[in-house]
């Protein structure tokens, strides 16, 4: 089983998202992802994310959103994390703003692994105390440590 630690780079974490709209949040999370993988084209990533959002929001409620998409010619699954203290209107199912974001971009051919990771992240963030710890964390380093630690405990 692929752990989040194997996929998430400490540099792929942003503690203070500035975006206030969905579109801007996706762009900012993509920027974070590009800090780790500079081979990606910013606009291509945002485009596949928006395409997916059009089918239905990936804001799953409880302040969590997991935007994701599929890209051609990608070697492996890429993820980044972002936190917004103010919250972003993400058309979430419960109508509340999203504060915690995981972004996933998967190679077009390996959707199976992508789903397993999606399931793992989703499970991690279903835990209310994990969400609270992530909201209370002071900086990127602490957020990263919490994710790795809680993922280990799953």
């Amino acid at each position, binding site marked *: 089983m692929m752990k989040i630690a194997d996929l998430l780079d400490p540099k792929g974490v942003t503690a203070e998202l500035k975006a206030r709209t969905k579109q801007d949040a996706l762009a900012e999370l993509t920027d974070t992802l590009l800090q780790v993988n500079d081979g990606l084209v910013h606009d291509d990533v945002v485009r596949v994310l928006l395409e*997916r959002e059009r*089918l*239905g929001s*990936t804001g*799953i*409620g409880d302040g*969590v959103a*997991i935007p994701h998409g599929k890209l051609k010619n990608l070697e492996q699954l890429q993820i980044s994390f972002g936190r917004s203290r103010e919250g972003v209107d993400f058309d979430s*199912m419960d109508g509340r703003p999203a504060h915690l974001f995981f972004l996933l971009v998967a190679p077009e051919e390996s*959707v*199976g692994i*992508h*789903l*397993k990771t*999606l*399931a*793992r992240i*989703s*499970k991690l963030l*279903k835990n209310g105390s994990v969400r609270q710890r992530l909201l209370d964390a002071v900086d990127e380093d602490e957020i990263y440590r919490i994710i790795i630690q809680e993922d280990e405990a799953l």
Partner: protein
Amino acid sequence: MKILIVGGGQVGFFLCERLSLEGHEVALIDRSEDQLKKATDRLDVLGIPGNGASAEILEQAGIHDADIFIAVTDLDEVNILACLLAREYGVITRVARVKNIEYTSQGAVLSKEKLGISLLINHDDTVAEEIVKIAGRTGAFDVAEFVEGEVLFLGYRITEQSPLCDLTLRELGEIRGIYRFVVTALTRKGKTIIPRGDDTIQAGDSAFVVCHKKDLPSLQYLLQMEEEEKRSRAPRAFILGGGHIGLHIAQVMEKLGFNLRLIDRDQTRCEKLAAKLTKTLVINTEGTDIRTLVDEGIEDAEFFIAVTENDETNILCSLLAKQHGAKRTLTLVNQPELLNLAPTLGIDAVVSPRIAAAGAILKYVRRGTVISLAAIEGSNAEVLEVLVKPDNEAIGKPLKDLDFPSGAIIGAIVRSDSYEIPTGDCTLQANDRVVVFALPEALPKVERFFG
């Protein structure tokens, strides 16, 4: 309920099996003692030898207190006469199967009203409707709609490349916040199971999924299927066999905007077909005439639909078409022995007149709280829609605390202005419409549960 069935052929036997398993009191009338024995040996039904259109025999079978009368012999005349008699005996629900199109087509001199029949089932029509329904939805091989089309029941064959392959049900449960659907059943090596948490979806399985039509685009994205809008404007489809079924399918698919080629070996029939169909290209040749099929663009054709009277021809030509690049094959198969075989050969969807007709009859017979129903190919499991009555004791309690029958699972709950893809914390409310998947042995329990 007490149910009288006349005719122990494929449809009759199938209905006896289903209805007796569901706990009804079933009596079967057939002229052939052998046919009767087949049913009475294996099923809990009363067999009466004789002619179903004879009052004496009907009385022996207990028509006086029958609630439902179903006539499904091979002879239209016998079925209709038997139903007329049943009306005289005061049976309220009367169902007859007819093959001759003149009873049901528009402008027919005789109608079901004139004949005093509550439901007149025409094999060819039910089969054609079934096939059109499947063709209308990409990627899925078995489609039924519930709650006026709001809830869909879809089947997918799982390959090693399928995104769902190797996922556990628990993992699917975790992503339900994003992808809202329930895998209600898996068919593996001919056996149907209701998968639970630790069960894994495997290559070779057929997965039966319930989802709301609003969530279909994201489900299709997940399963990497083309969206219908993205398909070429007029998807190409081939129909093999220009009988009633083929003609009916062509007429409906023309309206759906398909670019059609209808193939039949009989020249006179082709001429008649060409006169009746406006947009379809009618081709007079054999289904095995690959050169013509290739010339007409079998490669990348969206569908190859084989509906001749011959099962072997249908299966063989479907495989040929598939080999030459047809994306999906829908095949008519009559013989029950071949029904389970055809999917293992690589045919995408098999439609059986027997199951289509029996499904339509069951759906009608079980009106009431069971609002509509679809029979699943190759399995006796059923999907049904039930209404939560206001006095149901289950109302307001979380699903996980309810004593819901094992062997059954809730796929969707629809209320007046919303719907839920259920989790253990959901509760039922009065007048909810619930779509349930049930294995045959659980059906009576499901019915009791919803009282």
